[in-house]
């Protein structure tokens, strides 16, 4: 049992030294590079081929952030599913039926008892949606864990079953408009936190970054573990804060459209000066929801027993079982969690559309799975990160909306998305071969 690490035997290059000091995930750097490439590529394509680059504009990036939210929320759950060597093909359909039920509840049912526009309507609706999603997810998990039906089959059945149910809930009717408070969760000019709110959010995040770094360093000192060099701590903190504040500036530089400003001014007795009023959007509410979910899921995955068990099961299901982990119950809970997150996504998606339709969420399962996989979740199990999946969702959505922006037709969009998914998994395979 003798083995000395051979770190000292070879001279590390500057890059390796830098990565080791900062403890930055090389994968994440690769993903950020891919993202930058996509963004700049679409912008330049627009600039030179169409004569007008519109990708790297506050307006497009703001829209991109909103479009990504729904997929990102579900992708965080899909990470845990794939990490435990399962799959969930039903999330798009489950989103559809959940959105329909929430639509019926808030438009047809609750106003009868509470009156139209009652402030409790959106709260009851959202909670009911999340509870419904969690229940269906738990049911899927039960079939998989306790009856031993493979997840692929259960959720493939779910894909058809819940899409059919979504139609059946209201015989295919589109239910609109949704409750006005509920609609804010989908974004839109009113569904934002404005310039001041965004600054407050940004500053809170910066403070959290500093606190996390300080407390991390303190606990390493307490146990006498190796420390990052000070310059690396400053660099990480600096980059983190710069990105946060940059995002705030970006979101705040996208103003409300003139029509909305006029309406708003009229309603609040403000006179609009000739040069127009600059009212910032700031962060959209769905983006904040997605970030909150991402943070909570990261906490769950890395700081709790539940998360530790998820990864242990993914790494070696038999070992997890022998260590006394109730793997069946874990599977049920993981699928229930996926369902609950789908409920949140259904809220965002139907609120954004201001309507519930039975087609809502079609093909979302593919985007969600792609997001998780592009974000580094391995189908072999045991490996994956929440932030990776969120970045993956951003990559997928950037591709999708970039193609719309430069005018690729729907057929080509599908071909590109399919090709990217397969390529991403291939790159992942290569990466794993070289790193282990």
């Amino acid at each position, binding site marked *: 049992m003798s083995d000395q690490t051979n770190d000292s035997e070879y001279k590390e290059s500057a890059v390796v030294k830098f990565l080791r000091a900062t403890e930055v995930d090389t994968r994440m750097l690769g993903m950020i590079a891919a993202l930058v490439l996509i963004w700049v590529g679409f912008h330049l394509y627009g600039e030179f081929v169409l004569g007008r680059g519109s990708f790297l504009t506050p307006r497009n990036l703001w829209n991109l952030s909103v479009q990504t939210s729904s997929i990102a929320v579900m992708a965080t759950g899909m990470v845990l599913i794939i990490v435990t060597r399962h799959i969930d093909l039903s999330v798009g359909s489950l989103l559809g039926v959940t959105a329909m039920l929430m639509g019926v509840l808030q438009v047809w049912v609750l106003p009868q008892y509470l009156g139209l526009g009652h402030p409790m309507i959106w709260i009851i609706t959202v909670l009911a949606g999340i509870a419904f999603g969690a229940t269906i997810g738990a049911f899927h998990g039960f079939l998989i864990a306790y009856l031993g039906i493979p997840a692929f089959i259960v959720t493939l059945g779910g894909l058809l079953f819940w899409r059919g149910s979504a139609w059946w809930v209201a015989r295919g009717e589109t239910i609109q408009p949704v409750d006005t408070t509920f609609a804010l969760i989908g974004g839109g000019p009113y569904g934002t936190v404005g310039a001041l709110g965004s600054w407050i959010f940004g500053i809170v995040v910066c403070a959290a970054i500093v606190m996390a770094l300080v407390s991390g360093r303190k606990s390493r000192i307490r146990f006498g573990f190796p420390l990052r060099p000070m310059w690396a701590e400053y660099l990480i903190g600096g980059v983190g804060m710069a990105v946060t504040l940059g995002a705030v500036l970006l979101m705040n530089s996208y103003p409300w459209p003139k029509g909305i400003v006029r309406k708003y001014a009229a309603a609040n007795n403000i006179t609009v000066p000739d040069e127009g009023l600059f009212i910032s959007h700031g962060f959209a509410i769905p983006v904040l929801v997605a970030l909150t979910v991402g943070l909570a899921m990261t*906490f769950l995955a890395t700081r709790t027993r539940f998360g530790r068990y998820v*990864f242990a099961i993914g790494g*070696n299901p038999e070992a997890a079982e022998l260590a006394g982990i109730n793997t069946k119950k874990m599977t049920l809970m993981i699928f229930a969690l996926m369902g609950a997150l789908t409920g949140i996504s259904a809220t965002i998606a139907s609120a954004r559309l201001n309507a519930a339709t039975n087609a809502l969420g079609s093909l979302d399962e593919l985007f969600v799975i792609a997001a998780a996989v592009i974000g580094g979740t391995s189908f072999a199990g045991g490996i994956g990160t929440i932030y990776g999946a969120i970045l993956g969702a951003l990559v997928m959505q950037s591709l999708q909306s970039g193609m719309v922006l430069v005018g690729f037709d729907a057929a080509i969009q599908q071909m590109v998305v399919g090709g990217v998914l397969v390529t991403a998994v291939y790159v992942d395979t290569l990466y794993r071969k070289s790193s282990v």
Partner: protein
Amino acid sequence: MAKKAKTPSADPHAGKTPLVEMRDISIAFGGIKAVDHASCDLHAGEVVALLGHNGAGKSTLIKILSGAYTRDSGQIYVEGSEATITNPRQAKDYGIETIYQTLALADNVDAAANLYLGRELLTPWRTLDDSAMEAETRKVMGRLNPNFTRFKDPVKQLSGGQRQSVAIARAIHFNARILIMDEPTAALGPAETKQVGELTHQLKEEGIGIFLISHDIEDVFDLADRVVVMKNGAIVGSAQTGDVTKDEVLGMIILGKCPPGAIPGPGALAA
């Protein structure tokens, strides 16, 4: 041809309550009786080797003790009182720890996470106390394998010996009273095998009872006080290692023939 019949020597543990006693254990998998009314016991500070061919039922019997399988019938007694063991968690509560042949490590997480798998240390806020777990792991590994330095790496990246020491550390860190070692040296080189032998002696001194499953008859005679041989799911017999020769033990394994120095069980070839 007739030799002077050797009789089993007196049981050194006579009159003492065994640390663990499995009585009349049976389990069947789809019509195949993997373990058929098997009984065996283990005393404090004793090393009992379980021997038998592949498929003789020794691993299955031991997995019933460690909670990985639930028996169809029979009882398990720990220090004289009947124990309920239907899952690994319960076995661990009785101080029964197992080092599996496959090591049963989650390859994608680090040594500390494996050491504490299922028994994580938590902070007052119910979150994982990774720093405390790593600090403890550094202490344990420092005793067991001072050369071990790769605390941050997933165990997949460790050598066979290092992985073995993580599995051993996990089994002995939580005050095991009964230790099950399933082919502990199968994947190890000579130096590491010797180390496992030393560890076995040390644990024995501390009064831990050890079930050893091994194919290596040399190993068994070096380490074990007693052998229990299984064939076709049944116990052929048990013997103090001093009362039988290696050839006789091989005869028990291969033919099910019980030598005079052994106490025959239900699986012994009729004389």
